[in-house]
């Protein structure tokens, strides 16, 4: 799941596959701003077939938290 998330991030941020560091974080990674966050959430929802609550969307600011939210949905 982590690898899938990173792949999606790479596409959304338009950076090279494999260049997403493990500790990538919202507001820290230069591409991960609010608009890219929105695009990322849209892609994650479509890829994993889930819908996130606004509260979740606001907390999904690193890979661990995204994994947590996705695990809860499964």
């Amino acid at each position, binding site marked *: 799941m982590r690898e899938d998330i990173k792949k999606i991030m790479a596409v959304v941020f338009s950076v090279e596959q494999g260049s997403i560091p493990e500790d990538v974080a919202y*507001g820290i990674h*230069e591409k991960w*701003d*609010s*608009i890219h966050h*929105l*695009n990322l959430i*849209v892609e994650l*929802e*479509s890829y994993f077939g889930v*819908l*996130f*609550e*606004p509260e979740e*969307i*606001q907390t999904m600011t690193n890979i661990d938290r995204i994994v947590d939210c996705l695990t809860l949905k499964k």
Partner: protein
Amino acid sequence: MKIMDNRSIYIFRNYTVEPLFKDFSGVRFSGYEDISNVPQDISVYIWFYTCPVNEGEQEYYEKINDFRQKLDLVLKSCNPSSYLLLFALVPIDSFSFQTNKTKIKETIISYNQHLNAIADSRSLTKVIELEDFILENQNLEIIDWRYYFLYKTLINPGLSASFSTWFRRQWLAIEGKRKKCLILDLDDTLWGGVLGEEGIEGIQLGNDYPGNVYKTFQKMLLEAGKSGVLLAIVSKNNENEVWEAFETHPDMVLKKADFVAWRINWNDKAENIRDIARELNIGIDSLVFIEDNPVERNWIIQALPEVVVPDFPKAQYQIVHFFREVYNTWFQLYDLTREDHEKFQHYKQNTLRQQSQQSFSKIEDYIASLDTKISVKEADNFTIPRIAQLTQKTNQFNLTTRRYSEADISNFIESGYKVYAASVADKYGDNGITAVCIIKNISPDQAEIDSYLLSCRILGRFIEFALMKRILNNAYANGIREVFASYIPTAKNGQTALFYDKLGFETIKNGSDKKYLLKLNKLFSIEPYYSFTGI
């Protein structure tokens, strides 16, 4: 995917539309309902205002009226040689709170007719019917309320892929028709007769029939070239002889410099044409080939079906008329403005009349009409969370982009910093706390601006200047005589690079972080149409 690439696009908008355009490169966005910046180095402007949602009836009319005034202002300052695509309004949300639905419909129709009138009078302008997109996707959720309340999107960002496809199709319909390059044969095309047979003196080109036909044709080609059509030559001839003819024939209107590319040789013309497209880096489908010889024409039609090959007239006197049609059909895209708009002609006069009553010639007049009220207060326990949040979130109008927690802000206040929070209201509503300024007192008469930021919600009305002047005036009244400030560039805050310069600060240190000093010796005057309360 490539269709709008290599173009700079600027989108005026009232909601978050970035996700819809994420597949397009070179796109920039205005602030929300912000028209203060109308960049000129743009090839396509897009006016993408959508019907407001969650507004009461009166606000709804006022909003739409306001959109219209804004658009009229943009029209006055946008680059006249760029495209302007105007999105028509569609009532996306149902008017649950609004009682007078007929009047709302009329307001929308009148706005859309106004767009059509603009498209009718301005070249390169096209109305985009967003309704088509809504209808195509009516089984899907057009508004996703989660994203609306989190990110201010109106059209569901989940529809961005189908939006891209749809929008590209709209663009193709507008631009795809236009060709870029005219490829010309020479003998019996640019002049009468065959140069290699008859010699320079023998070809028909001059002031008598039929030479005058070719001379007129060349004049038209020259004009076409000036209007941006690329001219190229593909001809079976000896190249030296050809350039000599262009140079020495007294009635030759076109010169070598008027052509961007040529293949004058005895090779296959299809090969030559393909070569020229490659050299100019344009598509084969953007070429029109003018050639008198039907055999050569048919060969190109078969070998390169994407190239437009119009039938060349048999009679010489028809050439000029023929070319006018070719030009109108393939090169004068700008004429799209005429299509379908006759029916709006009578309406246009009405809307122009209304315009003259309502439109503002200067953005200052417009801003003055907004009735802007700015309340500036020192931070307290109620406002600290919002202040910290703004320092965390604000990227674009942020001079130093220093991120602070609530605890940081509280510490500043305890250490004697001045932390100001400003809320801004206008006739359309209250935006709440949308600006923060943190000032550190260095000595009784010296201060330093640690942070200054405004939410993009209130940009575009020069509030940033009025507010800073107000704060500086307050500092002056409190005995401050020297104010230090700095600008720390980031990937996002380029628009603030000259902010302090514009206010009259002196640069005291250049470099990646710029430092400024302002000696305060008098009060700033502030435009009277901003009304301040608080400090």
